[in-house]
C-alpha cells in the first residue's frame, strides 16, 4: 500500500511537476554550480548550475515512460510467443521454447550495448536523436525481456486449453483465435500482470544502466541514469548530485517490486505456508 502511494506520488511529481516548478532544465549559471540543496534549488545544482529538480522531473518522465513502454513490448511479444507455443501441438511449440531458452542464455547487457552501438546512428537519422534512441531502447529492452512472460503464458495455456469451458467453446464452433482471445487469455492474465509489473522495474534499471554507461539518451537529455553518470566524477564535492537521481531510481524500483510482490500474494492462490 505504501509503495503504491509512493509510486503514485512519484508519477504525479513527474507529470504535474513541470507546471509547478517552472525552472528551465538547461539554464546555465556557472556561478551557482555544484550547490547543495537550498530554497532556490531544492535538489541543488550540477557543475553548470543547472537546476537538478527540474532536470530530474524531466528525466523521470523519460525513465518511467521507457519502463512502461518496454514492459508493453515485452508483455506483447511474450504473450504472443507463449500463446503460440501453448496452443500448438507440434514442432512449432518446441521450436519456440527452444528459442525462448536460447534468449534466456543470451548475455543481456552486452547484447543490449552491442545493439545500441550498431543501430544508434541509423535510427537517429530517421527519428531524430531523442525519438530514435527512445524507440531503440524500448524495443531492445522489451525484446530481450519477453522470455519469462512467454514461459508463464505457455504454462498457463497448456493447462487451460484442456479445461471444460474451452472444450465447450470449441464444441460450439469457436475458432482457435476466438478461443484464445475470449476464453483462455483472460484466465491466463494474472501471472502476466505480475511479471509485467516486475518488468517495468527491470526496464527502468536497464535504461538507467545504459544511460549510466554513457550509451543511452544523448547527453543533453537528463534521464536519471544520465544525471548519475554526470555526477559520478564529482562525488567528493557534490554528493547531492548523485544521491537524488540514485534515490529516485531506487524508490521507483522498490515501489514497483513491492507492488508486484503484493499482486502475487493477492492473485496467486499458491501461498508459501
Amino acid at each position: 500500500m505504501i509503495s503504491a502511494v509512493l509510486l503514485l506520488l512519484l508519477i504525479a511529481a513527474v507529470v504535474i511537476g513541470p507546471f509547478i516548478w517552472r525552472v528551465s532544465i538547461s539554464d546555465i549559471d556557472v556561478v551557482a554550480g555544484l550547490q547543495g540543496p537550498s530554497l532556490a534549488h531544492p535538489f541543488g545544482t550540477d557543475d553548470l548550475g543547472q537546476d537538478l529538480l527540474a532536470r530530474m522531473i524531466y528525466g523521470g518522465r523519460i525513465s518511467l515512460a521507457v519502463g512502461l513502454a518496454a514492459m508493453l513490448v515485452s508483455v506483447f511479444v511474450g504473450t504472443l510467443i507463449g500463446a503460440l507455443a501453448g496452443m500448438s501441438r507440434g514442432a512449432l511449440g518446441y521450436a519456440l521454447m527452444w528459442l525462448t531458452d536460447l534468449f534466456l542464455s543470451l548475455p543481456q547487457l552486452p547484447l543490449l550495448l552491442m545493439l545500441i552501438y550498431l543501430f544508434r546512428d541509423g535510427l537517429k537519422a530517421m527519428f531524430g536523436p531523442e525519438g530514435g534512441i527512445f524507440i531503440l531502447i524500448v524495443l531492445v529492452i522489451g525484446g530481450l525481456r519477453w522470455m519469462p512472460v512467454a514461459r508463464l503464458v505457455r504454462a498457463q495455456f497448456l493447462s487451460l486449453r484442456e479445461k471444460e469451458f474451452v472444450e465447450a467453446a470449441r464444441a460450439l464452433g469457436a475458432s482457435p483465435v476466438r478461443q484464445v482471445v475470449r476464453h483462455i487469455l483472460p484466465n491466463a492474465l494474472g501471472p502476466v500482470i505480475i511479471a509485467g509489473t516486475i518488468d517495468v522495474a527491470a526496464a527502468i534499471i536497464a535504461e538507467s544502466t545504459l544511460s549510466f554507461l554513457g550509451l543511452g539518451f544523448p547527453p543533453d537529455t537528463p534521464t536519471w541514469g544520465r544525471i548519475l553518470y554526470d555526477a559520478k566524477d564529482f562525488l567528493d564535492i557534490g554528493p547531492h548530485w548523485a544521491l537524488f537521481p540514485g534515490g529516485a531510481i531506487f524508490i521507483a524500483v522498490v515501489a514497483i517490486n513491492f507492488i508486484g510482490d503484493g499482486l502475487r500474494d493477492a492473485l496467486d492462490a499458491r501461498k508459501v505456508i
Partner: protein
Amino acid sequence: MSQYILRRLMIAIPSLLGISVVLFVVLALAPGDPFSELATNPNVPPEVQAALRAKFGLDDPIYLRYLHWITAMAHGDWGFSFVSRVDVDTLILQRLPTTLYVVGSSQLLALLIAIPVGVYAATRPYSLFDQLANTFAFIGFSLPTFFTGILFILVFSVKLDWLPFVYTSVPGSGIPWLLEMIRQAIMPVMVLGLFQAASMTRFVRSAMLDVIRLDYVTTARAKGLGQAKVIVKHVMRNAMIPVVTLIALQMPAVFGGAIVTEQIFRIPGIGSLLISSILANDTPVVMAVTFVFACLVVLFNLIADVLYGWLDPRISFR
C-alpha cells in the same frame, strides 16, 4: 554420470551456435559498412575498393559470410582491434582473468551470505530475523549496482577514506602488494556480491520452505536426529537443487552487473573493454567480447547442469 555430462555438452554446443547466429545476424542487419571510410576516401580508386570487398568476402551471401566468420572464430582468429592494433584474442585473454576473479569472488561472497541467512530464515519463517532478511533482500535487489557502487565510493572512499576507488593493476609481488590487491577488490566484490546475495537469499529461503514441510523431514526428526543434522543433511541437500538452476539463470545478470561494476571502479576487465570499444567504434572487439560473455554464460549453465546431476542423481539417468 559421464554420459549425462556428454549429453549436456551436446545441448550446450547448439545453443552456443544459436547465439553466434543471433550475434552475426544482428551485425549483418546493422546499418553501416566496415568499408564506409574507404568509400568516402578519394585516394582509394573504386577498383581497389571492389577488390578489397571481394577479398574480404563482403559481397557474399550472408550464410557464406557466417560460415566464414564462425570457422575463423573456431580457429582462434578473432580479428584485429582497430584501436589498439593488437589481436583481439590477446586483448581479451589479458583482461579475462581480472573479470573472472572479481565475478568469482563476488559469487563466493554471495553464497557465503545467502546460504546461512536463507537457511536460518527458513527454519524460523515469519520471525523477526526472517522479516528483516526479507526486507533487506528486497532492498538489495532493487538497488541497481551502479547506485550501490556510487554509495560505497561515497561512504568508504570519500567520507571515511578507507579504500581506494580506482582499481590499479601494477605488477608486483610480496605481502604489501598482495594486501593492496585485496584492498582494492573489496568494494567491487562487495557491490556485486551483495546484489547477488539479495536474490539468492530469497531463492534459498523459498526452496528450503518447500522442502522443510515434506514428510521425510518429519520422519528424520521423529527418528530423533538433531535439528542441525536434519537441516544440513536432509533438507539443504534437496533444497539446493532448484537453487542451482536459479543461480545459473542469474548468470547473464551477474555478467551485466560485472560490466557496470568494472566501469565504476575502472577495473581493467573485459566489461570495461566492451564499453571502451563501443565508445571507440571498435567493432571486432565488441563482437568478440559479446561472444565471450555468451560463452561464459553457456559455460556456467553447463556447470550448473553438472552440479544438478550430482545433487540429484535421478536426473542423470533420465
